[in-house]
């Protein structure tokens, strides 16, 4: 029987990790993720999990330890945020290139400088092309559910890639919400026993990890990795089907909200999608055909399915909680625009940068954007393709 609780996002994800009971966790806690690993380390001290907890001196070492433990043949987790993720960067590629199914919740937060500890997507966006799977979560329930599903996706024998579960710093990590926990045995049965692939500790079958691969083979390994990325979406859908049977909660590659017959739409990740849905409802009440698209599997990006879901709109705004400095548009915008590029008929696209460093995203912001989209759809003219909103001019 599912249990209804009132918990923070951090507490929910820590509980998911307890229920999975991984073999190894190497961690260097960083705010706002700190509470998640503090709770998990209590589970270790209280004997509620059998996990070997490795306390390291930096996130670079945390991810390095995870790589070693995963290659050794264990089910391995860590968690991080912001600068911590930035410091792991070098090893993120080693984890994915070595095809190690490490699972890592990432509590999304701004990068320095200036120093800031609040919600922002710059950290995970900086790691979006590291070869990791990224599942994004609107609220505590989704973060909990995505964490449990991430093990099945990452560890699937056709995939074997590390996975990040993204959730907004403070807004989700520290806010108490009502959510449903699954039973411990159900989670255990769902994730199943960890399956090893070429474990280092199998001394009957010695293997070498991390060889030097020169120009005669490097490209073949990269091509193979690109192929694996194309298989992730189907596995995500299959795992979501099994999860729906267990929990009654349905997940896809993305969530569409009142989008099928919509003429204008918003694309927005994580917690701000919740706020935006309320405003979409208000527009619908006024007879305006507004809708919303919330990516869930953001890496590997399911661009074909995304383009199909958005191509019928007249005007679309992609809201990014991160910017690509010196690039063109925000990171999500670039992916959405690419997914729509093959279509002759496609919506007019605009991009807004919002909520950096924990700046509040309010219903009024969604309202302003939707009003602008009404105008763009009617007139076909765009005032500004890219703009910061909620900023003092």
């Amino acid at each position: 029987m599912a249990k209804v609780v009132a918990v923070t996002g951090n507490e929910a994800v820590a509980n998911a990790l307890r229920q999975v009971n991984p073999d190894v966790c190497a961690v260097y806690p960083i705010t706002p993720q700190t509470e998640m690993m503090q709770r998990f380390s209590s589970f270790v001290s209280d004997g509620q999990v059998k996990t070997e907890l490795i306390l390291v001196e930096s996130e670079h070492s945390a991810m390095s330890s995870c790589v070693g433990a995963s290659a050794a043949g264990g089910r391995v987790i860590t968690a991080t945020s912001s600068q911590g993720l930035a410091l792991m960067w070098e090893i993120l590629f080693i984890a994915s290139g070595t095809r190690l199914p490490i699972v890592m919740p990432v509590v999304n937060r701004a990068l320095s400088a200036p120093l800031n500890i609040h919600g922002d997507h710059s950290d995970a966006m900086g790691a979006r092309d590291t070869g990791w799977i990224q599942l994004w979560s609107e609220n505590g329930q989704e973060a909990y559910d995505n964490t449990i599903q991430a093990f099945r996706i990452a560890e699937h024998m056709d995939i074997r890639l590390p996975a990040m579960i993204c959730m907004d710093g403070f807004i989700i990590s520290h806010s108490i919400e009502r959510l449903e926990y699954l039973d411990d045995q159900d989670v255990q049965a769902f994730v199943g026993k960890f399956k090893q692939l070429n474990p280092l500790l199998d001394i009957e079958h010695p293997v070498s990890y991390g060889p030097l691969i020169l120009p005669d083979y490097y490209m073949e390994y990269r091509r193979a990795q690109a192929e694996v990325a194309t298989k992730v979406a189907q596995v995500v859908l299959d795992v979501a089907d099994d999860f729906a049977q267990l929990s009654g909660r349905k997940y896809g590659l993305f969530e569409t909200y009142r989008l099928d017959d919509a003429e204008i739409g918003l694309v927005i990740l994580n917690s701000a999608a919740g706020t935006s849905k309320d405003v979409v409802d208000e527009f619908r009440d006024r007879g305006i055909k507004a809708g919303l698209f919330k990516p869930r599997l953001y890496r590997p990006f399911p661009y074909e399915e995304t383009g199909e879901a958005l191509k019928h709109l007249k005007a679309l705004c992609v809201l990014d909680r991160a910017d690509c400095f010196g690039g063109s548009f925000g990171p999500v915008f670039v992916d959405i625009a690419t997914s729509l590029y093959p279509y002759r008929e496609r919506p007019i696209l605009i991009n807004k940068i919002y909520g950096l460093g924990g700046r509040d995203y309010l219903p009024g912001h969604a309202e302003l954007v939707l009003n602008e989209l009404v105008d763009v759809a009617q007139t076909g003219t765009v005032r500004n393709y890219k703009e910061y909103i909620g900023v003092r001019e």
Partner: protein
Amino acid sequence: MKLKSWKEVNPGAVITDAGNSREFKTGSWRSFKPVWIEENCIQCLFCWMYCPDMAIKVKDGKRAEFDYDFCKGCGLCALECPGKKGKKAIIMVEEGK
């Protein structure tokens, strides 16, 4: 050796057949070649111990010829060789000379 396609390579570049460095002949890296002068050899086997590439063969407990398929020409053996009465039993000769 026929090179594999991307469909045939192991996930994560993990090497699953142990001891396969034998297939990787490093002899072509050499620019100087060690040459053994048997009459100066005292059979101490220092060269065998020091060679990082196991490129010095030992037969029935005695120093045998170099294995030039794997000798990289690092010169360690020549440096460590005590030889006989100040005369080295290994000298380095430039390749192609």
